[in-house]
């Protein structure tokens, strides 16, 4: 990890306000990619709550080099939680599958987001951890608090769905 970021963590842990601001700038894009992919419409709320939690607990991070893995765990859990909250206009949150016809819009057909919206937040979280971050099943299971077999089956279903929607 970048040495500057490690220094920022140590300074922020001592209460340096400027370091906190700079560390926030460094972490926001990373957190935004995780939360946006999993929580979709609730991604901004999830990113905010993730970073509030990160900064409130920053002093508990003993090894600054582990920052991004630590933040990723918080972000994934917060994004899954936020995605399950009832939000007006969020069909996934209510457990409903979006109505067919999304392909009728020529400007959005083929958009990754449209496929993701038809997955559950848990399936999106698996895809993010395994396919975007390259974590193994054991680590993904630890972060999500589920059994390895659950990770395996969710991933299989999510990948199959994604590819089917993407190629047809």
């Amino acid at each position: 990890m970048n040495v500057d970021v490690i220094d920022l963590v140590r300074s922020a842990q001592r209460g340096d306000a400027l370091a906190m601001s700079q560390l926030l700038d460094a972490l926001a894009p990373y957190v935004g990619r995780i939360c946006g992919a999993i929580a979709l419409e609730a991604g901004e709320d999830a990113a905010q709550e993730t970073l509030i939690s990160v900064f409130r607990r920053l002093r508990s991070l003993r090894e600054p080099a582990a920052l991004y893995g630590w933040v990723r765990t918080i972000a994934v859990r917060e994004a899954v939680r936020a995605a399950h909250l009832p939000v007006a206009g969020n069909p996934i949150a209510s457990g409903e599958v979006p109505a067919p016809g999304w392909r009728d819009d020529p400007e959005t057909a083929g958009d990754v987001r449209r496929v993701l919206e038809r997955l559950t937040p848990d399936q999106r979280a698996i895809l993010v951890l395994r396919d975007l971050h390259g974590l193994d099943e054991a680590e993904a299971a630890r972060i999500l608090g589920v059994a390895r077999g659950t990770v395996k089956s969710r991933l299989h279903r999510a990948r199959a769905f994604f590819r089917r929607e993407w190629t047809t």
Partner: protein
Amino acid sequence: MSLSTDWPTSELDPVRRMRILAAALPRAAFRERVLDAAFADVWGIAGDLVRGTPQWKKDVTGLAIVGQEGELLDVVIRSYVPFFALGGV
């Protein structure tokens, strides 16, 4: 396009950024209020720290910018309230 490209991302707007920093800084106080006024009118006052701050924060009697580093400012505030101080904006 593949599974690993073009995933949706979320960005922090300035208000969310402020909420996070306020939660992180031990002595920070943060309040939000929606004003029934045009943004330009509000920002015309709020964006002018030196002259505008005493107009909307009545316990502030004066504010001076004593240093600047990029977008960060060091300011000294005079106030009726004892121990009131603002380290940066």
